[in-house]
């Protein structure tokens, strides 16, 4: 099975080398999508000998992932993993996230911080931002996934073909979930670890996501 690991990256020169090298042994191919970084992310990634796709202007994580997906499908991928470049995810868990797809019990697997693994999440995030994110996700997708904003996921070839990411920004997380549920794919959620070095997405980021989702509904 051809397993591709897509790593969307924007100004992650500090962590990209480590992330690439931890993921490389576990997959067939690592693909870094450099989303217009102004630091040395692209050069560092190329130095690790992995495929680097380069957006000459920053377009957003959703856009970077869709570029990665299209490349992977073109190259004959059977399983596509989405993995953040900031070192928040554990590469070892790649095996856990692709297992259901390998076994044929799922077409798409979502990672969740809230299914049992411990984390050092900031309190404001845990008790205010995350519950609100749940609510927004429920409203826009009708689903009850426990961690809709989690970027650690795995898609089978079938899932990647059915889900075209049109949201360039952070609303892509909700979009992927919505399209997954809408296409009748087999969906699974597994516990993953997320390490917090800094706060991550803020409340204002959340508001922008809501605006993007509403606009998308109006346009379509």
């Amino acid at each position: 099975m051809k397993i591709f690991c897509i790593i969307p990256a924007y100004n992650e020169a500090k962590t990209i080398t480590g992330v690439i090298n931890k993921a490389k042994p576990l997959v067939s191919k690592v693909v870094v999508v450099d989303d217009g970084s102004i630091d040395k992310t692209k050069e560092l990634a190329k130095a690790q000998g992995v495929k680097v796709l380069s957006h000459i202007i920053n377009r957003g994580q959703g856009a970077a992932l869709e570029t990665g997906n299209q490349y992977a499908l073109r190259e004959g991928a059977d399983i596509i993993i989405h993995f953040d470049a900031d070192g928040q995810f554990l590469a070892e868990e790649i095996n856990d996230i692709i297992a259901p797809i390998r076994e044929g019990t799922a077409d798409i697997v979502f990672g969740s911080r809230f299914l049992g693994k411990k984390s050092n999440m900031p309190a404001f995030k845990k008790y205010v931002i995350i519950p609100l994110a749940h609510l927004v996700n429920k409203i826009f997708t009708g689903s009850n996934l426990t961690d809709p904003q989690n970027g650690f996921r795995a898609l089978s070839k079938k899932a990647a073909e059915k889900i075209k990411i049109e949201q360039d920004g952070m609303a892509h997380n909700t979009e992927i979930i919505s399209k997954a549920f809408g296409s009748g794919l087999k969906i699974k959620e597994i516990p993953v670890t997320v390490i917090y070095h800094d706060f991550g997405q803020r409340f204002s980021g959340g508001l922008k996501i809501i605006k993007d989702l509403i606009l998308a509904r109006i346009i379509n």
Partner: protein
Amino acid sequence: MRYALCEKMLQQIIALIIIAFFLARLFWQKQKKQIGANEFIFWLIFWLLAAGAIIVLKWIDKLVANLGFSGSGIDILIYIAIVILFYFIFRLRLRLEKIEKDITKIIRKISLDDKK
């Protein structure tokens, strides 16, 4: 009553002079080819309608009063103008979204076609 009438007429005349100035400027810009035909027609119609509304302001006042509205004709015009403005802004935002998505398509093609 007479003073109020004169004041209103003065305002209308000043407004019409300003519109005449903008119209002249519009024709000058078209002459200098600074704006396209579409833009020219759009603003031409806009200013003519504005001038027209100001000229028949008394008539609009009567129309509005007959409909049971307590404000004057100018108030109605302003409300309508604001609604139209909001509509234009909405359309602009949709247009911007489309442009952003098109930019992403181009950037994506460049990245995927890059043989390096």
